[in-house]
């Protein structure tokens, strides 16, 4: 699939409006006949990044697979807010088993479909960061290693939001969670820990690994479409801000996701068979502070006493990503 680079930075938010695109390239979300995997009426919070990401990702997957998709959901917000019995927001074949086994359940579905000769039906596993990087990590690694025909999508909101914002292996350093509170000498989460799951996924040399955010839904859709055109184990890691857990305004979800990318803290890239093949370029790197200050989980870095040492440490992490993934747009472009 080829995607033409689009550089219509027509509004202050750098958003790209459909009206500036050729109609064929317009977002399917604006189509009355669009697929609707996760329909309205669910119980997600206002401004939930996960609900937004999941809807776009699954709709894109269904589009590629002619609606023939089965999805497995790990326990977590997405599962809880979408299926309070006897209601469901899923208009897609959907199974929830446990917190830590979604990748293995997805493997079982893929194996069943293969045994039945129904490889036209595609399997998508999905879970939050807790389910993916922590409790379901073994199952995910096993699924990768066997190269099972599953697209697994992690909606990363960087903590256990469903249980009340506890730290996960994906919680960034310095962030306040209910188990890494903003108290003591080193308030918030510690530095030097945490798992970079996209890189771990790449180490399995699976066909496709990509990251995305809800700030660029077209990019997310494109990556899902690309992943769905491949077979084998594929991994998509989507940053989904959580107003509740991050202490941010509901209206800032997309903005914060964009700042995560533009600061360099969350690199958006693609990798195939263990090698980075593309990264989303940043036109102008913003200081991490712009990203941090919108979130109460980093409030202790600014008040009562400004912690430049910690902010600098986070800036250094962002700067490292800039180099590592070659994120800056070159001057000549």
């Amino acid at each position, binding site marked *: 699939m080829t995607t033409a680079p689009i550089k219509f930075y027509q509004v202050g938010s750098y958003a790209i409006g459909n009206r500036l695109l050729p109609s064929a390239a317009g977002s399917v979300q604006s189509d009355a006949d669009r697929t609707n995997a996760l329909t309205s009426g669910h119980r997600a919070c206002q401004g939930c990044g996960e609900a937004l990401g999941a809807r776009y990702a699954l709709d894109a997957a269904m589009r590629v697979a002619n*609606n*023939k*998709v*089965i999805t*497995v*959901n790990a326990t977590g917000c997405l*599962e*809880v807010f979408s*299926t*309070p*019995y*006897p*209601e*469901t927001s*899923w*208009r*897609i*074949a*959907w*199974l*929830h*088993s*446990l917190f*830590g*086994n979604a990748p*293995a*359940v*997805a*493997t*079982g*579905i*893929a*194996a*069943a*479909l*293969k*045994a*039945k000769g129904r490889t036209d*039906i595609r399997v998508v596993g999905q879970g939050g960061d807790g389910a993916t990087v922590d409790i379901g990590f*073994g*199952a995910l*690694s*096993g699924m990768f*290693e*066997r190269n*099972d025909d599953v697209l697994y999508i992690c909606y990363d909101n960087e903590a256990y939001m469903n249980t009340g914002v506890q730290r996960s292996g994906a919680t960034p350093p310095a962030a306040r969670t209910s188990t890494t509170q903003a108290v003591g000498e080193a308030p918030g989460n510690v530095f030097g820990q945490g798992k970079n799951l996209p890189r771990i996924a790449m180490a399995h040399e699976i066909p496709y690994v990509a990251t995305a955010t809800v700030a660029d839904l077209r990019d997310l859709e494109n990556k899902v479409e690309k992943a769905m055109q491949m077979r084998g184990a594929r991994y998509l890691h989507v940053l989904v801000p959580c107003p509740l857990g991050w202490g941010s305004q509901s209206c800032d979800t997309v903005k914060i996701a964009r700042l995560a990318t533009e600061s360099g803290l969350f690199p958006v890239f693609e990798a195939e068979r263990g090698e980075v093949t593309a990264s989303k370029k940043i036109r102008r790197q913003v200081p991490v502070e712009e990203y941090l200050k919108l979130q109460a989980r980093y409030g202790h870095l600014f008040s009562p006493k400004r912690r430049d040492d910690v902010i600098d440490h986070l800036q250094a992490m962002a700067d490292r990503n800039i180099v590592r993934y070659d994120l800056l747009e070159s001057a000549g472009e």
Partner: protein
Amino acid sequence: MLKQIEGSRAVAEAVAVCRPEVICAYPISPQTHIVEGLSRMVKSGELLGCEFVNVESEFAAMSVAIGASATGARAYTATASQGLLYMIEAVYNASGLGLPIVMTVANRAIGGPINIWNDHSDAMSQRDCGWIQLYAETNQEAADLHVQAFKIAEELSLPVMVCMDGFILTHAYEQVDVPEQEQVDKFLPPFVPRQVLDPANPVSIGAMVGPEAFTEVRYITHANTLRALDVIPEVAKEFEGVFHRHSGGLIRPYKCAGAETVVIALGSMLGTIKDVVDEQREAGVSIGVLGIISFRPFPFDVVRTALRNATRVIIIEKAFSLGIGGIVAENIRMALAGIDIAKYTVIAGLGGRQITKASLHELFETAVTDDLRALTFLDLDQELVDTEIAKTRVQS
């Protein structure tokens, strides 16, 4: 077909002719030979239309089976001991979702201390997990119970655990009439799932159920489980019609009718017990045996009927509840509530210890004169434990 065959191999061949579609397993002794056999059959093309998945843990094994079963595939796995414990969360989930998975448990002790040999601690720990539990006495029965298990499971939309004693059965070579494809095809229809993940007719499976409906959901599962008490004997009868041998059912009485003393047990130790009972009978003792095949659900009524005229029962079991005593015994007490029958619990064969005829003779002789303690550990080195316990008391 009659074969001189290892128990594990007999089970593998029996499972294969049930036309499984997804088999997954993680290695743990003494279950390994079963899945090794099946993996070879799938790889060689002998077992067609089946995917064999080498998973990274027992938790994943049961999870793969859950996904496969929910997609309408006949799913099978096998485990034992620590492996069963490692998959518990998924074991409960499979029964809660009503997925008719069949699993062999090659019964083995659980640690610590680590012990790879046979007893029933593993399966007994899962007596409340919502799976049907069937215990095989012989390898013939182990093979047959697997064929019946798929039928029972799919009829009830509930998972079934077939328990066979690790090593004693799994690794024993004996004559087994291995079920053949044409026979099994007559007996076991293709799997028609009660609900299935199908993009053409999408359903949400595994929704969150709150306090307003959870009791009802669990009650319905309870009622469905109790229905197994009718289905298990029916399936055994149908099996006999096709295979011309009796296998399975809820219980198996042996010289039980009219016996003053009845010995109750599960699994392979029934063989040794029956030999001893035969010898006791020759010596004029009024003694019989009641084998329990279906431990879950527990057949209270038929057990009560079978035992109601006995003077005493001796329950021999290969697991126990620490600080409490017998597990099977507790169920026997419930079955015999209100009937005046002396009950002796004997814990035997833990961690692979041999249950010898000599020990059983002595045990039964003590029991028939009512000189047995209510809870006995067979062949316990009393002197050793007394010394050790005394030492701990001095230290503290």
